[in-house]
């Protein structure tokens, strides 16, 4: 199978590889996929509680080159966005940017899921941490 230059670039030089403290209240962690299916993505975001802006993002992925590229790209795209803006990222945009072939579309879906799961995890922490503040708004 031929890979696009962008997939090869992300595969060879993945951006934002690493891990953040998953217990921190500012960090949301999304872990999606399953080893039996050949794809697992962990995507983490660090959100500024004042601005809701994603200040940092890290990922680790077990999967094919397209899965690695999709999650690497996802970390680039969520950085600097607010969580609501990040929720607007669609898998089809990832497919387009990386020129993924039809058999690799599930990689982009997984990346979108990872973003959502990370944001969901962060939001859950906010609800637990400051229910009063939320109610006051």
């Amino acid at each position: 199978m031929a890979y696009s230059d962008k997939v090869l670039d992300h595969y060879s030089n993945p951006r934002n590889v690493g891990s953040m403290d998953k217990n921190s209240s500012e960090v949301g962690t999304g872990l999606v996929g399953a080893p039996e299916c050949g794809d697992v993505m962990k995507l983490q975001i660090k959100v500024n509680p004042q601005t809701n802006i994603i200040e940092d993002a890290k990922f680790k992925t077990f999967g094919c080159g397209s899965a690695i590229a999709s999650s690497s790209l996802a970390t680039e795209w969520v950085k600097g966005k607010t969580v609501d803006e990040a929720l607007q990222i669609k898998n089809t945009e990832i497919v387009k940017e990386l020129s993924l072939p039809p058999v690799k579309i599930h990689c982009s879906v997984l990346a979108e899921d990872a973003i959502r799961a990370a944001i969901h995890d962060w939001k859950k922490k906010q609800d637990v941490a400051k229910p009063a503040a939320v109610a006051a708004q």
Partner: protein
Amino acid sequence: MSTDVKTIPQAEHVAPDGVKLPVYMDNHATTPMDPRVLEEMLPYFMEKFGNAASRNHSFGWAGEEGVETARERVAKLVGATTKEIIFTSGATESDNLAIKGVAEMYREKGNHIITTVTEHKAVLDTCKRLEKNGYRVTYMPVQKDGLVDLEDLKRAMDDKTILVSIMWANNEIGVLQPVAEIGKLCRERGIIFHTDATQAVGKIPVDVNKNNIDVMSISAHKMYGPKGVGALYVRRKNPRVQISAIIDGGGHERGMRSGTLNVPGIVGLGKACAIAFEEMAKESCYLAGLRNRLRDKIMGGLDEVYINGSWEHRLPGNLNISFAYVEGESLLMGINDIAVSSGSACTSATLEPSYVLKALGTGDDLAHSSIRFGLGRFNTEAEVDYVADRVVETVSRLRELSPLYEMAKEGVDLKSVKWAAE
């Protein structure tokens, strides 16, 4: 607190002295032709172009002479007589002819066929077709090491069993089945034993008499011969085996395989067998040495690496390894100057990981992480060293990227995790 992983960007690789890139290490898929084979074939394309079935002129005689010399060479390599060798277009045709031919010929005697789940698709899909035509097929499981359990085999046999088809050497994991014992069990019960010996012939000693083989498939391109030619051994004595033809026509090859003979291809197969006969003993030591060196270097550089299939009963040139926590296709991307195969679903058309590895009880996760290295006649020690270094470096790099490796190192039992699979 955030930990940045210094992922080593993939480096540009320069081949060390004596290594030409890309390195070919996929010799179970096919082998390059030996130049001595090509040399032997060349006259049969132009000057000796005659049809081997033309009996009344010298052009035909030259072709026939080439074919008969080849037949002697093939027979000699496997301990058969010349009349027992039928030339075909390759091992897939040989498997089809063996199984369909025996099934049809012995239909009145019974309709039961036994094979194993780790056979090549040429055998499995042929059996599936026969099932639609009223035959009953038992697909035997294999043990964790890839070997059939002879007791299972005995239990599977009944008075309607006409054929057992079990491969000699597996194309993915290189595991060698106990063919002599299987053949003995079949002989005692009057059941015909076919073995797909595509990966075995020319690599390990193959003797149809010592190993109680009745019908055997042979391919040229797995032993440094040309593609598109193979043979089927069909026993003539003790017992005499008969098969129905599946291709009708001019009655070539004793009526078992009609069609003008592929003379240059057959000459090439013959030469490949002659070379194997002379050089096999030395070559198998050489290949086992290279293979063990590759294993030692890879296992010395990485933890959590698992060999698939029996180590003891294995082709000398085969190494099939799973690299835990790393997905096979991404590994192949990282070693793209090395030609090998993966059991990963992502490299197959079906998106299913290797059915052979699954049959050994290998989890899907490890099946996705497997690489098959197939060493051959033209591989060198320098190539093995280069490949081992590249594999260790790439697996290490991908493990730094792998959430599974990180979780395992933190002591998380990955089997107990509830995965949010879609």
